[in-house]
């Protein structure tokens, strides 16, 4: 077998590389820059070129080589290439081929086009490693346009009633989608983590106000605040009173998750594949062997075995996907500034 699941992470012995290792190793290929996939302490990094700035911003001084999509490199006979995963900017599926054996490590992915990230492309292989964050048939995400429409209606309704709209989402990925989706004349204020992430990504910040301690309430009057989950329940939010609070996450499909967070509104906006997306992606690879990682892995692998007669097994990893309660994949240093 070309790939093994080890205590350090997903490992290719022939090339001596790990993919998204959770312990420091010599050579690491990084699928994307969320912190449960991109960790510090590796000696050499390989990632897609669109991930470069954000990886350097988050991980500091690292030795990093980048590739374009479809560009191949060869390590000890193993041909390695990166392919669009549609998850966040620079996210990649890793294809590894050795003597006719082809593996694809997909990291996190979504199949629906979000209008911002380069969309997912299926890659034919024999062995496919898939996430299962939303691997239950209850998760059927609406189209991006539909959610954007709801989002824009909501901020306009709030403004008409003199209320600020506070929108919560991940700094990497979700925030840029929210900002791209917003069509409004209202002033938009960004939490500094998001502002800085945008800057690192080269996402145009010119239209947005960066939050500083000198912030004056009249700046919004009313307006929109985009922030990360870390501010929920903190005194930081109080200065925007009166406001309405919305979360953008795939978990918002469930009423319980929405109510537990005391959200006024939940927008079903995810950077992961929903149930149909997962099935579509798995089938499109034509792979016979499916390795199901983080999420509803036992349910989803059982489904693949029973319904599609695939050789599917569940695999224990330390990936976390989209946290339902905490934004653990965003636990990075700059949150604390």
């Amino acid at each position, binding site marked *: 077998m070309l790939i093994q699941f080890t205590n350090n992470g997903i490992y290719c012995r022939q090339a001596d590389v790990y993919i998204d290792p959770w312990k420091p190793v010599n050579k690491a290929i990084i699928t994307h820059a969320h912190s449960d996939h991109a960790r510090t302490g590796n000696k050499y990094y390989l990632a897609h070129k669109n991930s470069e700035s954000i990886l350097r911003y988050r991980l500091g001084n690292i030795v990093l080589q980048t590739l374009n999509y479809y560009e191949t490199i060869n390590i000890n006979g193993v041909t390695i290439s990166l392919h669009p995963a549609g998850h966040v900017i620079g996210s990649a599926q890793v294809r590894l081929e050795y003597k006719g054996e082809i593996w694809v490590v997909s990291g996190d992915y979504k199949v629906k086009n979000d209008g911002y990230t380069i969309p997912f492309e299926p890659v034919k292989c024999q062995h496919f490693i898939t996430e299962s964050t939303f691997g239950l048939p209850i998760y059927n995400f609406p189209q991006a346009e539909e959610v954007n429409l709801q989002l824009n209606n909501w901020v306009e309704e709030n403004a008409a009633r003199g209320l600020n709209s506070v929108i919560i989402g991940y700094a990497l990925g979700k925030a840029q989608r929210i900002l791209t989706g917003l069509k409004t004349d209202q002033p938009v204020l960004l939490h500094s983590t998001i502002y800085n992430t945008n800057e690192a990504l080269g996402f145009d910040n010119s239209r947005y106000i960066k939050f500083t301690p000198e912030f004056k309430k009249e700046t919004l009057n009313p307006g929109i605040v985009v922030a990360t989950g870390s501010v929920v329940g903190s005194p930081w939010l109080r200065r925007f009173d009166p406001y309405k609070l919305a979360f953008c996450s795939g978990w918002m*499909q*469930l*009423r*319980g998750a929405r*109510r537990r967070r005391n959200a006024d*509104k939940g927008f079903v906006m995810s950077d992961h594949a929903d149930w149909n997306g997962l099935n579509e992606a798995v089938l499109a690879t034509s792979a016979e062997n499916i390795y199901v990682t983080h999420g*509803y892995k036992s*349910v989803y692998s059982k489904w693949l075995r*029973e319904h599609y007669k695939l050789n599917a097994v569940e695999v224990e990893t330390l990936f976390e996907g989209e946290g339902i309660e905490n934004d653990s994949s965003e636990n990075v240093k700059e949150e604390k500034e």
Partner: protein
Amino acid sequence: MKAFTELYSALDQTTKTNEKVNVMVNYFNHINSKDAIWAIALLTGRRPKRPIKTTDMKAWATELAGIPYWLFEDSYDVVGDLAETISLLIPLSESNVEKSLSEVMEEIILIQSKTEEEKKQWLFSFWNSFSKDELFVFNKLITGSFRVGVSQQLIFKALSKTYSIDDKVIAHKLMGAWLPQTSELRELLSDESSSFDDSKPYPFYLAYQLDVPFTDIGSIVDWQIERKYDGIRGQIIVRNNSVHIWSRGEELMTDKFIEFMPLKNILPNGTVLDGEILPFKDKKIMSFNEMQKRIGRKNVSKKTLNDIPLCMMCYDLLEYNGKDIRQLALIARRKLLEELITETNNPLLKLSPLLDCNAWENLDTLRNESKLLGCEGLMLKQKDSIYETGRRRGKWWKWKVDPYTVDAVLIYAQSGHGRRANLYTDYTFAIWDNGELVPFTKAYSGLTDKELIEVDNWIKKNTIEKFGPVRSVKAELVFEIAFEGINASSRHKSGIALRFPRILRWRKDKKKEEINTKEDLLQLLNSVL
């Protein structure tokens, strides 16, 4: 159905009471009176009987969703709510047939008596024509689990604003038994209606737990002090030579409490008593456990009547000689009550004694006698208070005794429902018994949202085994459990059953070696008996 679904969503999405009232006023202003009646019925918890068995609904939803049954069950475990699970699994259709709330509700009532196949076809026709939100609300109505996060008082307030009728009148008019399918909106709400239902109770006046210092509530001489009894709060109504007994949960209990039937010849017509119905034998109040046995029985046998006789500890008089006297001061109502009970002179009706206490400082001594007397604490009522509707602060307070507590360790967890779906929040706790941990109680509430998430994360990382939705976890986390009473129980492995157990606090400072033992609880049990 669309308008009602929007109302439901709007109420679901705000926690602010003013907004809730506005949303309701807006709804009632725009809806026809037939739908309004149904909306009032549903909001105040009046639901038609569940027309379709849950197992059938699950099977049919599985069929329509085109998934195996185990996947339906696994999905249900995650969502934690049947109505929502079904609305998420059923493929959405393009067609959208608009039916009014009253049409839907009338169909729900009609379908109850139909065959299984007819029910299935009927259900599919709805499932195939609703939007996702409508599906959810519809399923809630069908599964009998329809509940809205809005208090009765807010509903009365909104109705009062919409129809310009005093909210206390509305509260009274909406009490008791009425059927939405046969009611007229004007008759239902307005005071002038002549057809007054003999069984109609008054809205109960409820007290909050005392949470202000005595210095804030004035002099003790202005207060009437009584025991707080541990039974079923109820109203005994005698009108037109018949007796009706209502519990505070607005359930008609007349058939269960049959010993009160003779009161129709004993109390004058036009009498409504407010009090606590208690199991009472040999001049002593029996434990609430005995009351539960009484309520649990479908038919009340002679033996039960003999073993567990009831009485009412009367503490208020709401109607006297056919007149609503709730606007009289408590002290005046009490005088009439005393006269009535003395005149009646029947062991079924006892007068709740007034306690003598000359200073607030001495009140705690009286409160501490409560448990010995089978009581829950004290009631403080201002002597000039009128009989209000609903739960209100200020004039009436309850001052309950502190609960019992026990330290226990968490051993099983199950994911919750509703607001807590997908989070492990239903816990089973254990105590030591001769060097072994024995499970002895479940408890659900008491932790903050933040703690719940912390415990949930811990559970996911410290699971030993999974059995369906239940996980056994490493015995490590210690919690202080509060409870109101303890009874011997043959149904529980541990041999004891706690009453109203809940989590008081997470004892991060304690280790599992330091928790209580079964011996400790048995000692408590014996001291209570």
